[in-house]
């Protein structure tokens, strides 16, 4: 609009020279104003889409903090954090240590399964595998990563427990932490493998070639050159996997049982923080009751633990990354 206005205003000023050649038609920039307006509207809409993630975070924190705060008005936070008896399902004792220890046991077992196997797979795929083998194995890992956790829970309950664990340890319970931990390990294995492989892949080729030129064998290149160079990425992958294992719900809810027992024996059933949340929901705790509020207190603790692990993994990458350029 402005453009055309200026153009027309200028025209009389030019015309006094009679017989001047006809001016070429002015570049039509009509609509520039409305373009600018619609552009701004679109910009605002897109900005709002991006900002929704901040709103989500605020929503999560607000819901957890508000309800957990109400919970801590009824149960002292000291008792919650130091109590060794968790019978929230019966609205009696709210000492969170048994389900924190349960989470810890399952996570440690999962890492014992996933870290060595994932790391070995990553080294194999990155250093040893011929292209054709790689083209088969990578999709298999991707499919394994896409298996829903409820299916892995079913696998733990109907195969790992009866066919493996109770054959080796007849004293193990139908529900036990070992079975759940192994299944969680299977779940996070593809994540450890693919993130570690990414880290190894980003090590500059010159390092590898230099080591080969010095006469190193394949294994020495993989283990003494590439792995140390990619160590920050590998460590970050393992921490992220641990965070995922801490937050895993269905596998433990199915395979590890519903009794919160304070024990370190993985052959016994124990409850994790996540499994407790699902169990209590199934019991339909009335809204506003202490049991209902305890959901959010446990959820807040869970959120805090996973957030710290995620931040730690980002810190490890930022702080210890080997830069070669």
């Amino acid at each position, binding site marked *: 609009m402005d453009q055309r206005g200026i153009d027309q205003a200028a025209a009389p000023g030019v015309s006094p020279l009679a017989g001047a050649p006809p001016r070429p038609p002015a570049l039509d920039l009509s609509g520039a104003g409305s373009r600018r307006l619609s552009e701004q509207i679109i910009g605002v809409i897109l900005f709002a889409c991006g900002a929704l993630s901040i709103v989500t975070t605020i929503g999560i924190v607000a819901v957890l903090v508000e309800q957990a705060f109400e919970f801590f008005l009824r149960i002292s936070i000291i008792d919650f954090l130091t109590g060794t008896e968790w019978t929230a399902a019966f609205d009696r004792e709210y000492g969170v240590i048994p389900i924190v220890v349960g989470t810890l046991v399952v996570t440690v077992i999962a890492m014992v399964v996933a870290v*060595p196997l994932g790391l070995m797979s990553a080294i194999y795929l990155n250093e*040893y595998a011929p292209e054709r083998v790689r083209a088969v194995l990578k999709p298999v890992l991707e499919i*394994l990563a896409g298996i829903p956790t409820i299916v892995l829970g079913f696998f733990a309950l109907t195969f790992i427990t009866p066919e493996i664990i109770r054959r080796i340890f007849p004293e193990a319970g139908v529900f036990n932490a070992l079975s759940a931990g192994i299944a969680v390990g299977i779940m996070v294995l593809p994540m450890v493998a693919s993130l570690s492989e990414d880290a190894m892949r980003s090590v500059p080729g010159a390092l590898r070639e230099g080591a080969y030129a010095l006469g190193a064998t394949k294994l020495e290149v993989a283990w003494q050159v590439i792995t140390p160079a990619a160590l920050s990425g590998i460590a970050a992958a393992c921490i992220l996997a641990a965070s995922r294992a801490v937050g895993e719900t269905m596998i433990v809810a199915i395979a590890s049982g519903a009794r919160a027992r304070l024990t370190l024996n993985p052959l016994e059933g124990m409850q994790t923080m996540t499994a407790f949340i699902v169990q209590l*929901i199934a019991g339909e705790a009335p809204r506003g009751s202490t049991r209902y509020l305890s959901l959010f207190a446990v959820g807040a603790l869970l959120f805090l633990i996973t957030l710290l692990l995620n931040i730690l993994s980002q810190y490890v990458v930022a702080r210890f990354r080997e830069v070669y350029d």
Partner: protein
Amino acid sequence: MTAPAYADAEHRAATAGTLEGTSNLGWRHRVGQVVGSSLLLATLLAVVVLGVLLATVIARGWDWLNWGLLTNTASRFPERSGLGPAIAGTLWVIGLMALFALPVGVGAAVYLEEYAPDTRWTRILQVNIANLAGVPSVVYGLLGLGIFVDILGFGRSALTGALTLGLLILPVIIIASREALRAVPLSLRQGAFALGATPWQVIRPHGLPAALPGIMTGVILAFSRAIGETAPLLVAGAAGAILSRPDGPLSAYTVLPVQIYQWMQRPQTEFRDVAAAGIIVLLVVLLAMNAVAILLRQRFGRTRW
């Protein structure tokens, strides 16, 4: 015999200082081979686990697969139990979720990739999205319970489930879409900008179509994750046993994995077999979606530039 004697002597002289290392070369290679094959075995273990898992599920559930399983409603009798309401519920929840998460996720990706200035706020936004991707899904369930059920009053409805899952997969969609947009060459954009196009006139007709295959691949993978999610929907109110298909966004619902979980909780072992049959159905759906994603990637993976 064929090797000249001087070569050996020269070799010995050259390696006099590192005799140990060199004389061990054969040994070092052998160690490398042994370790290499154990690495292969470790990798193959994943294949074995996947195979045993599928075999276990198919062995238990195969005999229970029939049309009744797909159409019947929940029942006390295992042979009359079916996934009818669960399939309808999954379609409702995923459909509503797509309406919400698809435009918002791609919009956020376009904002971050094409519009956002390089400021502190933008960096906070990026870190925040990365952290949201790491929040356990059950916590999203608590978010849905606290906000959509309790505060907004949507109840334990398909809409609550859809919004909860939508927030859960939003970071995944944003991250995948950003990568797809980033892969579009700069020259395409610069050409359009040079002709006087506004940012939106560059992205809508040029950037988005070029990035579409990549975006769709990421979106399909995110959706298949959403279809397999159990915990957030259990917490945010998917019903246990339900006899009718949902007839609107605000009606009660259940979804495939929640129905499977309910069957697994039953004491009768027959219901475990029905659960296995349900898992086969779920896996077939997910496999089909993954196949589409792989096809898209292969068909449009190498594009014209």
